[in-house]
């Protein structure tokens, strides 16, 4: 039972990491008044780039490559949504489609039409001395790949930045009332560009975490809706860093259920567990209704 619990907590932390990274980035983007429906595509682009770069230059470079590649994808979105003021949802959907197609083309172009299963160097567990030997939570929390620690660092840093600095205030001002922000001498366009690029970088890192820290390979469409789940997580976490991180853990736990179900002998079809995170997203969004107040300018052109 304890063993199953440790496995469950460990799987929770592992699956929550890419979700948390993507959602924290998306939170910043949405705080600027832009909703990045293309996040799914950003994650996918980051995942492929991380695998390719890690294969050539090692794991660290893989994460950097993922973030750089996601910058490109996010730039397309920013160009259309911020500069050209195109419809955010249609643009985001197109960016996701584009990324799905481009990663498919590149992957098959590089590794053959059958898509040879890749073996790439992966980010192993980096155990923190002492902490990782704590009973029960030691291994799940403190013997994870570096990307999980990146989440630990990002949550307080983002909170400090958003609520305690001038640029953080500028971000929130643009998201709540772009006209007022303009009157105060802030350029909404510039703030939004920066926010979308930052969110893109984290989305790419999320893809990297998924490919080279969690799964260990690339598969077409491997993001499997995580970008959209991350957008739901941002709403559930009420656009605050701590809330978003907690919501990501809930979703990590929902995905991790499938890993313990068998050891506990639950006789439910496998597909029920696969579908569970998506059903949970629907339930959670419904349950949180009315108590959610998005940034006032969200989605406005």
């Amino acid at each position, binding site marked *: 039972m304890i063993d199953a619990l440790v496995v469950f907590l460990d799987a929770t932390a592992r699956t929550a990491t890419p979700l948390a990274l993507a959602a924290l980035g998306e939170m910043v983007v949405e705080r600027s008044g832009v909703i990045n*429906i293309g996040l799914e595509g950003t994650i996918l682009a980051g995942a492929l780039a991380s695998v390719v770069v890690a294969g050539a230059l090692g794991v660290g470079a893989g994460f950097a490559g993922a973030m750089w590649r996601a910058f490109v994808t996010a730039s*397309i979105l920013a160009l*259309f949504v911020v500069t*050209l*003021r*195109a*419809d955010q*949802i*249609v*643009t985001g*959907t*197109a*960016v996701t*489609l*584009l990324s*799905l*197609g*481009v990663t*498919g*083309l590149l992957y*098959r*172009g590089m590794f053959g*039409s059958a898509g040879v299963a890749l073996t790439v160097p992966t980010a192993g567990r980096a155990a923190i001395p002492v902490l990782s030997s704590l009973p029960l939570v030691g291994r799940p929390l403190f013997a994870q790949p570096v990307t999980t620690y990146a989440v630990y660092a990002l949550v307080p840093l983002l909170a400090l930045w958003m609520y305690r600095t001038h640029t953080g205030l500028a971000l929130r001002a643009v998201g709540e009332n772009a006209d007022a922000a303009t009157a105060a001498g802030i350029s909404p366009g510039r703030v939004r560009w920066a926010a979308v690029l930052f969110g893109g970088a984290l989305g790419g890192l999320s893809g990297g975490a998924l490919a080279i820290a969690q799964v260990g390979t690339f598969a*077409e469409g491997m993001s*499997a*809706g995580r970008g*959209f*789940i991350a*957008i*739901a997580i941002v*709403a559930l976490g009420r656009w605050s860093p701590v809330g978003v991180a907690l919501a990501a853990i809930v979703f990590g736990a929902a995905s991790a259920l499938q890993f313990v179900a068998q050891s506990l002998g639950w006789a439910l*079809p496998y*597909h*029920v567990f*696969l*579908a569970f995170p*998506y*059903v949970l*997203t*629907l339930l959670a*969004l*419904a349950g949180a*209704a*009315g108590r959610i107040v998005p940034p006032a300018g969200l989605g406005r052109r």
Partner: protein
Amino acid sequence: MRSGALVRAGTAEGRGARILLASLLLAGSAVVIVSALSAIGGHDPVRVLGALWSGSLGSRYAFFSATLVRATPLILTGLAVALAFTAGVMNIGAEGQLLAGAAAATALGLATRAASAWLTIPLALTAGAIAGAAWASVPGWLRRQFGVLEVISTIMMNFVALYLVGYLVRGPLQEPLGIYPQSSSLPEGVRLPLLGGTRLHIGFLLALACAVGAWWALRATAAGFRVRVIGANPEAARSAGLIDVRRTTFRTFLLSGALAGLAGAVEVTGVTYSLYENLSPGYGYTAIAVALIGALHPLLTAVSGIFFGALEAGAAAIQRDAGVPSVLATVVEAALILLLLAAVAIRARWRRHYRIVVSGLFGRPASGGDKP
């Protein structure tokens, strides 16, 4: 009266020319994008374009048995998206609604072995449409009741549908031998009749009929008017008090889902004859491009569906003949949507600029003639 008719005729003529120009630009852009991608990927663009042509429009067989067969679900799902977007409902869930429709039509088709085709085919198609509507009713209800953003909820429902089909074809609907993750083949009585020696089934005609029906309904009925009004300006519709926005939105969800579900039922009874997980190569997502390129107009959406049907049929041919992965089609679709968005945005910007120049020159605010 007379001048009004003249103006209308004038715009209709201008519209025809614009549509022709837009179609040429569209096809031209597709050719340029395909050539550029082939060249980047180290393939011979001429050979790739040749395969694209011969696989889509190059022969009678290619046109009827590949392009139009592919176009059928694209027209239906494209109409589903066009209708939803017209009402301001961002239904990205046509894929899941299609799968739900396919599953329901298969279940019903397999259950009614003995009955006459005149009964079973309409029943199976109706079951598909109802299942699609039911699938769409979940995000519709979530939006109506809790204000849940349908972009997220419809996509979540897509994944749930995928896993539901995955479960069905390994459980209740699996073929009797229990080896393959797919259903048994549908009996002859539930298969759509084919048209004159081709692989094209009457589902294509049904799709065209749906396009004409949707066009007429949006143009000429009170319900269609309500759909257009809540899409154009929900605040005005609400404050005018004549339109129940929530109800109209919910009904649009249902109808949109029914069209996508019908697409699934038609695909199962007309093309695949059995249910399996990879039944749809992303028709529900391509549908977004179909609807947008069709300017959300039902008749243009049907034309756009045929265009994208040709693109997808051609993409299958270039994978076969020129060794270029068929996901190329997805890249072209996305690029076309982005091109369209850029064109619309730049035109709007140019107009705004033009209007400022005009009002500056004549010293009065220009008004009218420009939609926001």
